[in-house]
């Protein structure tokens, strides 16, 4: 007698009142004393049970217990296949099969290619590839990189059958406010909340502070869950001196969205500490990169140490320059390249001159996508010296291109990358040493470059989007199965 033939007598967890079967042990029941041969009120068995050749004889105590269990189980016994046991809070994938997702965004490529813009584009691509429909609400008038299945709507755009918005678009068209910015933002909130044609929406997914008030209002009006992704906080962007209006909108979003997604653990902790986010309502989903082919045949005349990012105080470019000054004398053929623009530009130029390395530092200003690829193809080392970096997608892009990366320990990307040098953001000597080490040891450069590429491409936007849809599904389930 094998185990398979022995009665499975412990389906006691089966909820009372559901149909059940006792596996292959049907016939055993009649062998047990005190067990009704035919179950009580249930319908008769569809297939008559075949008794096994030899009944098993469990010890007396167990036998009595089993009999009682069987009694209990037999109350409404039917012989049909039982439904699969479902977990307490089942993921309702039916709800996610084909969703209409309203993204309340901000920038979108091609004109804006910061982390938020890239994230939005990639999310749109992957969501539509998975069969979902996306409506993207943005204050900007485009042009937008076309993604089939994504409808872009903006305040002055065509809105068939709807009244024109009373929204001062000039503020966001680049020209600074004719009216006050507060007025403009309120107009934006009202515009988002009142968008029609979204009756079939499944979820409202807001990105960063700008859309929080309007987006949450819209979700409430539509009766759908809201998700907020925070890419960086006002504390980070302002080095600890947040603008109150923005800070408030961030906190409002974090406290009111059903789930907040942070792009790193570091950021998630901040949301909990600074904005009182409930840990149970915070998820971490990292950014990703697309495999960019490393251009071949780019021969740099110099060895390039690259730093790429907006020239703001939080990016720590001054640390980069100070480290460069320590390294430069020993490496006369090294060129320290700063790509990006921003308010710190004049100060950084002054610093480079002051440090006496003006001849080995180049400020490129804004670089286009093709230029960026050429830079990555020719760089020997990439440095991300940020004081604060919620994620740091530029470093991940450098890794994907096989460039060895030195990054500050506080960056979000440090959480997903192991094949990098992680340095304290204030440690100029350490940055300098790491740069020199990568310049001087080719084997180190090669091995770290390869390892970094593996790190960067291990999980792509497809995986990140699946994780995001997982959050939608979780909320859809919660909405259908309220506790």
């Amino acid at each position, binding site marked *: 007698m094998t185990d398979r033939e022995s009665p499975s007598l412990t389906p006691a967890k089966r909820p009372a009142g559901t149909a059940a079967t006792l596996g292959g042990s049907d016939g055993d029941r009649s062998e047990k004393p005190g067990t009704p041969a035919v179950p009580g009120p249930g319908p008769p068995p569809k297939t008559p049970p075949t008794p096994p050749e030899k009944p098993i004889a469990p010890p007396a105590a167990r036998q009595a217990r089993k009999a009682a269990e069987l009694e209990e189980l037999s109350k409404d016994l039917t012989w049909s296949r039982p439904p699969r046991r479902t977990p307490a809070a089942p993921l309702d994938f039916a709800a996610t099969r084909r969703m209409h997702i309203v993204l309340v965004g901000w920038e979108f490529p091609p004109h804006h290619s910061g982390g938020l813009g890239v994230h939005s584009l990639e999310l749109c691509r992957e969501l539509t590839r998975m069969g979902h429909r996306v409506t993207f609400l943005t204050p900007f008038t485009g042009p937008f990189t076309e993604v089939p299945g994504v409808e872009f709507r903006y305040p002055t755009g065509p809105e068939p059958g709807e009244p024109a918005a009373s929204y001062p678009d000039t503020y966001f068209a680049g020209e600074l406010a004719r009216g006050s910015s507060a007025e403009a933002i309120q107009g934006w909130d009202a515009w988002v909340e009142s968008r029609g044609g979204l009756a079939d929406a499944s979820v409202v997914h807001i990105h960063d502070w700008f859309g929080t008030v309007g987006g949450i209002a819209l979700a409430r009006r539509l009766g759908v869950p809201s998700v907020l992704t925070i890419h960086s906080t006002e504390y980070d962007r302002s080095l600890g001196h947040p603008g109150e209006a923005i800070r408030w909108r961030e906190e409002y979003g974090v406290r009111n969205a059903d789930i907040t997604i942070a792009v790193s653990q570091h950021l998630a902790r901040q949301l909990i500490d600074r904005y009182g986010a409930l840990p149970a309502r915070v998820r971490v989903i990292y950014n990703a990169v697309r495999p960019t082919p490393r251009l071949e045949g780019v021969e740099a005349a110099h060895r390039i140490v690259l730093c790429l990012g907006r020239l703001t105080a939080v990016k720590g470019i001054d640390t980069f320059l100070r480290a460069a000054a320590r390294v430069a004398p020993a490496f006369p053929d090294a060129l320290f390249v700063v790509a990006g623009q921003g308010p710190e530009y004049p100060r950084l130029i002054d610093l480079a001159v002051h440090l006496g390395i003006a001849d080995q530092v180049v400020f490129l200003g804004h670089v286009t996508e093709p230029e960026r690829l050429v830079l990555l193809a020719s760089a*020997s080392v990439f440095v991300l010296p940020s004081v604060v970096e919620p994620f740091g997608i530029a470093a991940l892009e450098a890794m994907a291109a096989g460039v060895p990366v030195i990054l500050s320990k506080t960056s979000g990307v440090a959480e997903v990358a*192991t094949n*990098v040098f992680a340095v304290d953001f204030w440690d100029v000597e350490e940055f*300098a040493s790491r740069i020199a080490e990568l310049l001087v*040891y080719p084997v*180190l450069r090669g*091995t770290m470059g390869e390892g970094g590429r593996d790190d960067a491409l291990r999980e792509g936007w497809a995986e990140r989007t699946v994780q995001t849809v997982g959050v939608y599904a979780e909320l859809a389930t919660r909405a259908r199965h309220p506790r």
Partner: protein
Amino acid sequence: MKLVLYLHLHQPWRLARFRYMDLGSGRPYVDRERNLAIFRGIAERCYRPALDRLIAATEQHPGFRFSLSLTGTFVEQAEAAAPDVLDRIGRLVRSGHVALVGETYYHSLAFLLPPPELTEEVARHAQMLEDRFGRTAKVLRMTELAFSDDLARFAESGKYSAMLAEGWEGMLGGQSPNHVYCAASAPTVRLLLRNYRLSDDVGFRFSSKTWNEYPLLAEKYVRWLSSSPGDLIGLFLDFETFGEHHHADTGILDFLSALPAAAARERRLEWATVEDALDLDPVGTVSAPVTVSWADEKRDLGAWLGNDLQRSAFEAAKKLGTLVRPAGDPGLLEEWRRMLTSDHFYYMYVSGHGADADVHRYFSSYGSPYDAYANYMNALTDLRRRTLAVLDRAEPETPDPS
């Protein structure tokens, strides 16, 4: 059936963080205090309690015999951090229950360097054993239990009676590890082989709660030993197994204490040192054209020289040898030899051996293999510059052009 218990004692001189910017600063490569602090910790958790239990066992069980090896770097650190550990070892040696095993002084990969490096390092170790314990080792073990036909010939030339090696199927070709063999390349050299299954039951699996034999008690283990076929069982382990790799609260020290008594109840079992085991007749020959070690699943030198970082670092160290020797400065020679310690290369292991990566991380003193490599190379570059200064020569290498 002879039980050949052999325990290996080693601590490396770990390097301090030596930045590229520290080149020429005269900073020491080794963080002496940190190493000694680590040693004190291990002495507390492992060396003292385990040695005490071994001493007690030799006193209670006249038949209990085993073997020890200890590297020169271990002795140096013990002397500075916990001299009582050496006293305990001395007491064991004097008791006559313990045989000492020879090896390189620096726990180095000197066997991959041109002669006479290996000869000198083994001689230095032999001198240390003689000075400190008044003993001469008859049996030789190479760093990480490395064995090859060349190493057998080396042992023969050094008048060693036997070598220790991993009882690895890849080398034994179907023969049992539970016998004494002759080295095919040097028939006067016997081979004592590590039974890695039974050794790893204690070394790796003892505290693993997912192991289906958990918990391992001395009685059960001795039953396994006694039911094994053959003439001897080589139980070769890191000494740190007892109290450090497995902490005391796993029961490992009690297991060690209980082992001699449990074995005494099995008539078939008899403790033997590596030298006692040489009385057994060899049953065949074993050849290893390629070096076999006791590490990782592949039992090769991949754990030390498996990736480009490791190979390039080792090549750089090897190359520096051709400068250090002519420089004739004993201080530089000593520092260079400390750089040959195999642990430095072990820390540069990236991945590729699967589950072994966890083992490597456990033993590493760096955050990443890249840290280990850069740090090592900086120190080595500094040492090279100092050596060139002694030789009154300029840096010959140009910076990497790519």
